[in-house]
């Protein structure tokens, strides 16, 4: 049973992630008053890329990308999709937090070996941005973990199915709003698209990827979309009893994200960090304090 779940859950994530990619391109086009590509366009791209002959810059160039993708896959194994959560009893939230590091770090290592200036700039921005949104994100996650007194994400989901969504429950509402306000940064969409910034630094860390490498990077991007949204759904929207409902919840969140993406221009990296360290952090901090206060009040 667990083996099946292990195979099923990444595949599900891949399908949903790629669907989201296609959907986002189509929806963006419609918002731009265009016809747009078919929603299968990402799959076509991936097929094309796999048939192309690429260059590699060394072993780390390959290994970093592999590691990054593997990291994302392992994170997916930890995140409950509906009731599918094959590995979440092997470490819980903290492992997810740390495994989330593997993806950007793997890309950074791989890009680093490419010896391209754009890559370095992109990585530098990526890491700065990560530090930027980690500050509020950690506060938010700590508020959750403190409130539910567990480090297991399954437990958090389980508790919400009894007590209602965390986003709507009184001590966690601020944290939930905080999470929404940093989600574009987590997903790497506009206005936080500084990492790739194709017009500016030639798609940053991906600049030397072509052919199969780019295909894997695209898949990685898709999985990242999935992870970012699935975390929110699990942590604040109470997860779901089965994958379908889960998918619907994710879809709603994602469509919201696309609107933001389509409507806003790109921030500079300093502006991004300044934003992230100001309002979302303040919200998250107040949220955490509220949780602590409520806890100590109810404890007596």
């Amino acid at each position: 049973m667990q083996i099946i779940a292990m195979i099923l859950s990444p595949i599900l994530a891949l399908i949903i992630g790629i669907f989201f990619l296609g959907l986002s391109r189509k929806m963006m086009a419609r918002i731009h008053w265009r016809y747009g590509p078919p929603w299968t366009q990402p799959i076509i791209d991936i097929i094309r890329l796999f048939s192309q002959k690429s260059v590699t810059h060394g072993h780390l160039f390959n290994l970093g990308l592999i590691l990054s993708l593997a990291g994302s896959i392992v994170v997916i194994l930890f995140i409950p999709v509906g009731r599918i959560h094959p590995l979440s009893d092997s470490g819980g939230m903290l492992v997810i937090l740390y495994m989330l590091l593997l993806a950007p770090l793997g890309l950074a290592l791989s890009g680093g070996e490419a010896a391209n200036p754009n890559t370095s700039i992109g990585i530098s921005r990526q890491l700065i941005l990560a530090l930027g949104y980690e500050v509020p994100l950690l506060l938010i996650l700590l508020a959750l973990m403190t409130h539910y007194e567990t480090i297991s994400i399954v437990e958090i989901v389980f508790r919400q199915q009894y007590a209602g969504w965390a986003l709507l429950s009184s001590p966690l509402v601020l944290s939930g709003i905080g999470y929404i306000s940093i989600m574009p940064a987590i997903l790497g969409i506009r206005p936080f698209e500084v990492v790739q910034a194709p017009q500016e630094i030639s798609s940053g860390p991906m600049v030397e990827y072509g052919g199969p490498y780019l295909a894997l990077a695209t898949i990685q991007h898709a999985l990242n979309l999935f992870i970012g949204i699935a975390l929110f759904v699990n942590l604040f929207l109470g997860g779901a009893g089965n994958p379908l409902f889960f998918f619907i919840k994710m879809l709603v969140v994602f469509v919201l994200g696309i609107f933001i993406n389509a409507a806003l221009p790109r921030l500079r990296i300093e502006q991004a960090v300044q934003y992230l360290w100001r309002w979302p952090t303040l919200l998250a901090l107040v949220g955490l304090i509220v949780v602590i206060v409520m806890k100590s009040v109810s404890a007596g």
Partner: protein
Amino acid sequence: MSLELLLAAAFGGSLLTYLLGKISSGLRDGFAVFVSVILVAMIAGLYGKIGAVTSYYHFMGLELTLRISPLSWFFAMAVSTLGALSVIFSLSYMRDRERTDFYYLMMLLINASMLGIVFSGDLVSFFIFWEMMSWSTFLLISYNRGSALAAGMKYIVFSIIGSMAMLIGMLSLYAVYQTVNIYMLSNLVSSASPGYLLFLLIVFGTAFAIKNAIMPLHTWLPDAYAEAPSPFTAVLSGMLTRMGVYGFLMIMYVIIGSVQTLNMGYGLLKFNYILAWLGAVTIVIPTFIAMLQNDAKKLLAWHGIGQGGYMVLGIAYGTNLGLAGGIFHTLNHAIYIVLLFMSVAAVQYRTGGERDLNSMGGLIKKMPIAFIGALFGISGLIGLPLTNGFVSKWLIYKTLILNGSPFLAFTALIGTWGTILSVYKFLHNLFLGQLPEKYKDIKKSPVNMQIPIVILSLTILLFGILPGLPLKVINSIIASFGFKSLNVTLWGIVSETGSLNTINLFAAILTGCVIIWLILKTGPKSVSASQENTYAAGASIPEGKYHYTVDFYNPFYRMIKPYLKDFMDIFYFKLAGWTQTLCNIVRKTYTGYVGHYVTYIVLFLAVLIFMQLKWSLW
């Protein structure tokens, strides 16, 4: 095997190494390696012989004893192993340098005195070995001359302050209880008044906080690490600094005992809580300062301070998880920081002592083993899953979150993210990116440098995948402190509030990697490209003219730089300046004019008589 023999071998070995160096350098190198390796074997042989007490000497009417506890065995094993690896590493690093005999003497002497510290059964031996360690470290920090001298001075002044604080604590214990035996004291002290215990914690704590570079007392460390010879920096950062952790454990949980220590103070103003916050501050600020460094060793040195914060945070928090995490982190930190310094040293060895991050790059192609060392090292430092650093950090975070200290947990977690930024810069600027023209013909690191690097890299992975190996020993340590031991399996920790299973993680990541690798294999085979063949808007880059690792996080620097000065260091410099001025003023009492001197004599007599008449002192 008795402990006297062990220490005699350690100290005698160091002296003999020095003497052999006068005969032949080959003999000396061989003997140094032999001594350090034999020590590892001897200590490994002591496993399980817990509690053996040997009284080896009577000093000033005190019985000096040596004793093995689980804690001391654990530290001794780490000290001797890392010491042996550093000695092996030194062989080629130090080959053509001056005063090599002196270097080995000090290296082995420091090793021996650290073993002495951890095996001490009483505070006087502890203090004696501690002092020997301090002055020999001072000599070795100053070894590189130039700016190393200032670093050495800073170190020794702080170190003396620490030892003097410790001396007060130790002798006051002796004055009160008439014994300095650690284990006898641990029975006696628990009934002392809280005020006295607080005094003890503060004086001993000052000493150990200086050694472990806790935040307001940390400023000696960056310079000392940066200026010491690199293989010795490895020892310095790996174990020597962590003698402070050993000291904290000893005073808090062995001598005073967990019950007293954890109940000291009122409400939020508890001793251990304040110490934990100091640890938390020590995590955050140095980690961010590390980002601003452009000197490879200094960058690592600041991380050394930051990681010390994790250990203190863990052990000060005073839960079994925290304690296990803190102790485990000490070991883990030792392993990866030694590895990192060795990688830097390997690079330095080939590039002629270069450690400026802005002028290097692309060495991965030339020094793959050093790169692997650095990669594993930074993974451990960040605490990526499957490295040892992850497990210990996981333990600390877990207890902080579940025992209701989210802000402490936040500082600890955010420290990790700060770490990523600076260590990636470290790795990138040294090994990735463009290889400068001048390093085109650089050679691989020698075999004796590769061996320790490979061993340590594998250890990081081993302890990351099978953390049960060291955690079993750590479990017996925390049990000896009177805490509940953890439910440890070979590959993780089982508990109702969230368990950890590293072997699953390992299997998952490995499978993932293999599958993706296979997918990549099925695609068209890719062609390898040189570093000149990169996209630069169609321009071809003139060879050796393009290098871009300078100011890696420039936009971010501009934001945080004004807030991240080492204010304490500036303060201490001012303090030193004031002291100097004060000394000069005091010196002016000796005017050089004999009339004044005669006046002093008369005044003295007058004051003496006046005082007697006024207060009748006699």
